[in-house]
């Protein structure tokens, strides 16, 4: 089979039910080879359920998933050898030290001593070199997270899923991790990221799917997603004693230290109109900034109650 032309991940009408609860309601999308893909959504959206199905930890009620053309059920061995998953939970085996655990993990995937230099490189890159012979149970949470990342990458999978890899970790590890993932991505690895830190997704991912209540609410390139918002934000600092006219009060999203932020619908509220209203009210503008919506604004817009994708 020529895997060069295939999607890295193909998710086809995947449903998952737990009794009457439908965690996934027929989710379908593809992730291209070499993409840095973001899978976002609020808690309970179905992200982890979908990742569990891809990883083989959970079985779909209906639908199929394939990794580089290999079905994760009927051809599970090939699919799993092509996939590395960093689980969300901080799990570890207390009986082993770091290097033994990585060698065991490599062996599960059919790899032997030929990956030991790669293990050494990962220990170096993830700042685990000094912890090589430390027992896993003796490591801090951040160190355990690094080991989990190394475990997922030990068999050099062409597709990597990171399920909230930076949850609860310090800035240093985030930087280390993202530098490492950027390198891997540059060498052709497909990376799928779920995170609640939306600025990370905005910075790293070229395409994003937003999942909510078991459905795909949006699936676009990051730039298209950012550009689809009909809003922009205007921050104003008014002069001493100046008040915002009543007509603009409904547009206020935040007010802090005298700085007022207005959410303007581009078609309905031209900036010029805001300035005219302020001038007519006799308000003096001391400072002004505009801000384009970021991923967090889009995310909130798409996942709020009653939102239409």
């Amino acid at each position, binding site marked *: 089979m020529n895997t060069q032309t295939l999607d890295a991940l193909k998710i086809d009408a995947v449903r998952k039910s737990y009794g009457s609860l439908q965690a996934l309601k027929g989710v379908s999308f593809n992730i291209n080879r070499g993409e840095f893909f973001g899978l976002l959504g609020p808690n309970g959206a179905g992200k982890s359920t979908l990742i*569990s199905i891809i*990883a*083989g*930890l*959970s*079985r779909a009620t209906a639908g199929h998933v394939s990794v580089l053309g290999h079905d994760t059920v009927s051809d*599970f*061995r*090939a*699919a*799993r*050898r092509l*996939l590395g*998953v960093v*689980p969300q*939970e901080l*799990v*570890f*085996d*207390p*009986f*082993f030290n770091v290097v*033994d655990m990585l060698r*065991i*993990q*490599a*062996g*599960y*995937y*059919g*790899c*032997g001593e030929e990956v030991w230099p790669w293990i050494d490189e990962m220990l170096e890159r993830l700042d685990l070199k000094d912890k090589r012979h430390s027992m896993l149970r003796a490591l801090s949470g951040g160190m355990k997270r690094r080991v989990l990342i190394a*475990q997922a990458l030990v068999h050099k999978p062409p597709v990597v899923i990171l399920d909230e890899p930076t949850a609860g970790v310090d800035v240093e590890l985030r930087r280390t991790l993202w530098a490492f993932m950027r390198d891997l991505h540059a060498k052709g690895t497909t990376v799928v990221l779920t995170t609640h830190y939306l600025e990370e997704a905005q910075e790293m991912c070229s395409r994003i799917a937003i999942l909510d209540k078991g459905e795909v609410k949006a699936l676009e390139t990051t730039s298209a997603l950012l550009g689809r918002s009909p809003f922009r934000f205007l921050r104003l600092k008014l002069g001493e004693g100046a008040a915002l006219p009543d007509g603009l009060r409904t547009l206020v999203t935040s007010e802090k230290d005298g700085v007022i932020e207005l959410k303007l619908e581009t078609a309905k509220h031209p900036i010029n109109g805001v300035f005219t209203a302020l001038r007519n009210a006799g308000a003096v503008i001391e400072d002004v900034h505009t801000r384009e919506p970021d991923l967090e604004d889009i995310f909130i817009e798409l996942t709020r109650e009653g939102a239409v994708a």
Partner: protein
Amino acid sequence: MNPNQRGFYTLLKKEVMRFWAVLGQTVSAPVITALLYLLVFAQALKGRVVAGYDGIDYTQFLVPGLVMMTVIQNAFANTSSSLIQSKVMGNIVFTLMAPIGPLEWFGAYILAALVRAALVAVAMLAVTMLFVHLPLHAPLALLVVFLLSAATLAALGIIAGLWAQKFDQIAAFTNFLITPASFLSGVFYSVHSLSGFWFHLSHLNPFFYMVDGFRYGFFGHADVPIAQSLLWITGFFLLVSGIAYWMLHTGYRMRK
């Protein structure tokens, strides 16, 4: 070695390394416990004649039963404790996400349990043979009974480990099934010394055939013919192995 074989070998090695890391708890402790049984019972019942075992004193009679009882308990403990620990700690995901099929999983866990059971058995025999003379009548039968019995209990441990969701449930399985059935399997007595009901009930206990068959390997005679013991043990092995394999294949209580 192809990738599937390497996956199997690694899982086997990991399971052996797991109990090896706590050898004092997994091998030394059960050997010492069994030797204490031997010391106490042999002292208390010294000179007792065992019905149907002419020329064999009670201490000699006791040793094979104690070895098999320890094998039974440790083969079960190895697989059941490994699985429940992995499930409770959450690290079972590493095996679940790996390209390891149910047959490799089953084989690796059974073989690792056999290694532990063999270590326990050899350690016990090595120590007791310093004090007790044991003939070796049928080494092949001895080996077959040992392998089948330990593999059966390892498979039962897989069933218990997959079924249980907390340590209490494994303890209940051990305390209310494995320990009573192994104690009442004729380790300390010949079933011919039992009255009608208990005599017949003993013949429904698969552990009885394991102990009796193992004893045959040493002495050349036992409470029931060796063929009957082998038939029972093989049947029980196939039954529990089939269930354990099905549970691994379906991901019972592992893959949601």
